[in-house]
């Protein structure tokens, strides 16, 4: 069925157009707005993060270099060196030196002096360890690198240490220690609420995390990402990470900033955009469906009506509801089926009439047999009774009758001439001595096909009209080949056709009432029908002689299987 296919493609096209018109602008707008919105927000956030990070970095750098400077200064103090050697016993003097050197940074770090064995001598705070191993950790590192400040992180605190040289090896160590409270004070106010700060040692182990950062695993995860060389974005999608590395210590300060738009907000945006698109798509589909239904329903009705007509049901009618194009089409369809119906009725009638004629013809065919038999009986009666003429006429008439009612339209010239002879024989008995008859036919043309009973009416015309005046005449029939055609000529020396009749004939006005020359008209009509409008009878001038000369030119056609020239 073509119905569903038609509907489908039609609907698809409609749907495509509706979707394109409905969705494209929406999608483009939504994409653009979301993209611009996001990129502006993210750029702002990045700028703000950079500002915060710069502030954090500035403070950290400043403190590191200040502490380094204080340690270096303390390490040069003669009093400190002597105290480390145990030569100086006055604690207050050493403390004074220590506090005055560290005066500006007493709240930013704890400064301590350790002897060569790692025992605590003096400190600005009570919380620093009483002793530190010199074979391990920061003092070991400081001892390995005299004249340098070394930085190490351990268990939530950052230590700066510097070996104080004196004689062989170090006489002691000056250290600065930054613990959680120091870092908190250092970074206070330099990063926004919601952001967090991490301080990592050179190998990215956590030293400090701002109090709001509750995630112990963050530092290890960041370290893992760094070692993999991957983006920090995968550590946590809610935040962005900004890293600053202090060159002197190798420590890293990491600012964790929440994304300006939490993922759920973005998801909400996407969801809303997606839902709008879906809604729009739904409306488009709905509109396309209803529109196509509206448009398609009449077409479908028409289509099925046409299918019904195709199946032969001509009584189908389409209801015409409006004045639009489809309705006009429906109206035309209705008229068309009506015409078809009428045509059909007419041809049925024709067919019936034809059938009737055939029946009549078949009934009529009964008669010839009866006629033959009767004529045959007559022939024999004639013979028995010694009336040769009755016998001849009966035999001739039977022969003519047989040939004239045969179904064939064309017969061989030989047969046509035989019929003609039979006819003439009858007429000779009717009008004894009235005319002479002669046939001259080219032997090679005897098997050519000619229309049946074509010559007989011409001869009849000559006998009946040519010798009306009672004169003795002569009729000749001549068949000669002329190129690829043959020429049949019927000539008489009777009184000829009256000029009026001739004119009438030439104008093809049909025979006069009363039936004069009816045979000529018929032959002319048959020839024209068979061979074309130019192939009728031709009247040839007889010159000085009286009478009529009628000529017919026919193509030489032989029976199938014969030569067709």
């Amino acid at each position, binding site marked *: 069925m073509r119905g569903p296919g038609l509907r489908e493609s039609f609907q698809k096209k409609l749907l495509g157009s509706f979707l*394109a018109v409905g969705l*494209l602008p929406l*999608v*483009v707008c939504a*994409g*653009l707005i*979301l*993209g611009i919105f*996001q*990129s502006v927000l*993210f750029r702002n956030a990045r700028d703000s993060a950079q500002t915060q990070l710069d502030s954090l970095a500035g403070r950290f750098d400043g403190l590191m270099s200040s502490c380094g400077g204080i340690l270096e200064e303390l390490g040069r103090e003669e009093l400190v060196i002597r105290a480390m050697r145990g030569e100086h016993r006055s604690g207050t003097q050493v403390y004074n030196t220590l506090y005055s050197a560290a005066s500006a940074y007493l709240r930013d770090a704890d400064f301590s002096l350790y002897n060569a064995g790692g025992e605590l001598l003096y400190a600005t705070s009570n919380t620093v360890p009483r002793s530190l191993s010199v*074979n*391990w*950790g920061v003092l*070991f*590192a400081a001892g390995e690198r005299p004249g340098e400040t070394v930085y*190490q992180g*351990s268990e939530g605190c950052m230590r700066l240490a510097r070996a104080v040289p004196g004689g062989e090896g170090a006489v002691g160590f000056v250290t600065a220690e930054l613990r959680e409270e120091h870092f908190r004070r250092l970074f206070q106010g330099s990063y926004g609420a919601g952001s967090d700060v991490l301080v990592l040692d*050179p*190998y990215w*182990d956590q030293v400090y995390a701002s109090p709001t950062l509750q995630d112990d695993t963050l530092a290890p995860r960041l370290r*893992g*990402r*760094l*070692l993999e*060389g*991957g*983006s*920090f*974005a*995968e550590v946590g999608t809610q935040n962005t990470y900004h*890293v600053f*590395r202090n060159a002197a210590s190798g420590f*890293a300060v990491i600012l964790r900033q929440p994304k300006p738009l939490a993922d759920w907000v*973005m998801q909400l945006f996407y969801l809303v955009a997606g839902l709008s698109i879906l809604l729009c798509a739904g409306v488009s589909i709905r509109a396309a469906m209803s529109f196509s239904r509206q448009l398609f329903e009449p077409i479908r009705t028409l289509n099925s009506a046409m299918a019904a007509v195709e199946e032969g049901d001509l009584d189908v009618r389409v209801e015409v509801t409006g004045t639009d194009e489809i309705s006009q089409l429906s109206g035309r369809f209705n008229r068309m089926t009506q015409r078809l119906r009428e045509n059909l009725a007419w041809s049925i009638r024709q067919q019936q009439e034809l059938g009737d004629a055939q029946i009549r013809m078949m009934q009529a065919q009964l008669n010839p047999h009866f006629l033959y038999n009767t004529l045959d009986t007559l022939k024999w009666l004639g013979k028995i009774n010694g009336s040769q003429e009755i016998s001849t006429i009966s035999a001739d008439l039977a022969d003519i009758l047989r040939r004239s009612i045969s179904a064939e339209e064309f017969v061989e010239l030989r047969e046509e001439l035989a019929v003609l002879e039979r006819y003439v024989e009858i007429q000779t008995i009717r009008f004894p001595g009235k005319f002479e008859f002669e046939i001259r036919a080219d032997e090679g043309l005897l098997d050519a096909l000619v229309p049946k009973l074509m010559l007989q009416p011409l001869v009849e015309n000559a006998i009946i009209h040519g010798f009306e005046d009672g004169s003795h005449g002569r009729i000749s029939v001549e068949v000669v080949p002329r190129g690829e055609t043959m020429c049949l000529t019927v000539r008489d020396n009777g009184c000829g056709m009256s000029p009026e009749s001739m004119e009438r004939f030439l104008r093809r006005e049909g025979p006069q009432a009363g039936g004069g020359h009816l045979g000529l008209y018929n032959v002319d009509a048959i020839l024209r029908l068979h061979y074309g409008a130019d192939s009728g009878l031709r009247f040839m001038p007889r010159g000085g002689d009286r009478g009529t000369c009628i000529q017919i030119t026919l193509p030489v056609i032989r029976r199938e299987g014969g030569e067709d020239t």
Partner: protein
Amino acid sequence: MKKIRLPALLCLFALALCACAPSALDPALITLVPPEEKRLVVCTSHKEEVYGPIVKEFQARTGIWVEVITGGTNELLEQIAAREEAPECDVMFGGGVESLAAYAGYFEPYTCSGAEFLKPGLRPEGDPWTPFSALPVVLIYNTKLVDEAELTGWEDLLDSRWKGRIAFADPAVSGSGYTAAITMLSCLPGETWELVRAFAENLDGALGDSGDVVSAVSGGSKSIGVTLEETALKGIAQGEDIGVVYPAEGTSAVPDGSALILGAPHPDNARAFLEFVQSTDVQALVVSDFARRSVRQDVADREELPTEEEMGIFDYPVDWASALKEEFLTRWADYTGEGAP
């Protein structure tokens, strides 16, 4: 019209996606990523309190970034065996010598510079691994429930007096439980399987985790127990009510070790790590901070602890232990009733 607008639309989408697509590491951070020659991957079955300070100090001293992969000894060794073609790890740090011996084929022998200072008997033949610390097996008792004189040695574990009151880690589950069982079998006279049967019957149920022994004894649900000296000393340091008895018959001190993995991606750094863990600095830490016994002769154990001679330390029969293991576990299951249908 559609054909022009569709690509444009796709471009817009791509732009929108780019805005939130994950990017590679910030270029500014790439300079912070350590190069391959400054990296080391350590597989360790130690607890973080053990490997943490060592790794930290190693990093500080060498500038090498250490990635630590933690897990159970057998789990890690199986991983190493599975990745034999392309090892991820450089060093296996931790694991008893029994386990290490079983996987010796996956290690590259390395002789540390201080190998001659190792205590006799701890250095493996051919140096497939380097011993890290020695872990004597000791008996513990609840100081409230048991008099110190009541517990003297391995023989007491077969005494029906303690039936059902012994905390012992199931050898089928715990490596240290099996070590303790083999140590006991080595010290007591008699037919091996008879001893196992007698012990299993007297035990009347083993603990699933070696970590539970101390808590079971100090909590009083068991009266005496078998555990490692390290675990016992840590328990005491944390104030648990337990006392340590060194068995009169003597005991074993099975070392754990570290090994260089064959085909390690960073072999030089791995060797540096092996050198470091058996250096005197780390060995001193093993004694002072981890309550373990050093493997070096030149690092003294804690003064308050009995010396190895006093403990009667004998060489742990590694080969016998591994040969026996399968049958032992089958029979153990029978004797403890777990194997019964």
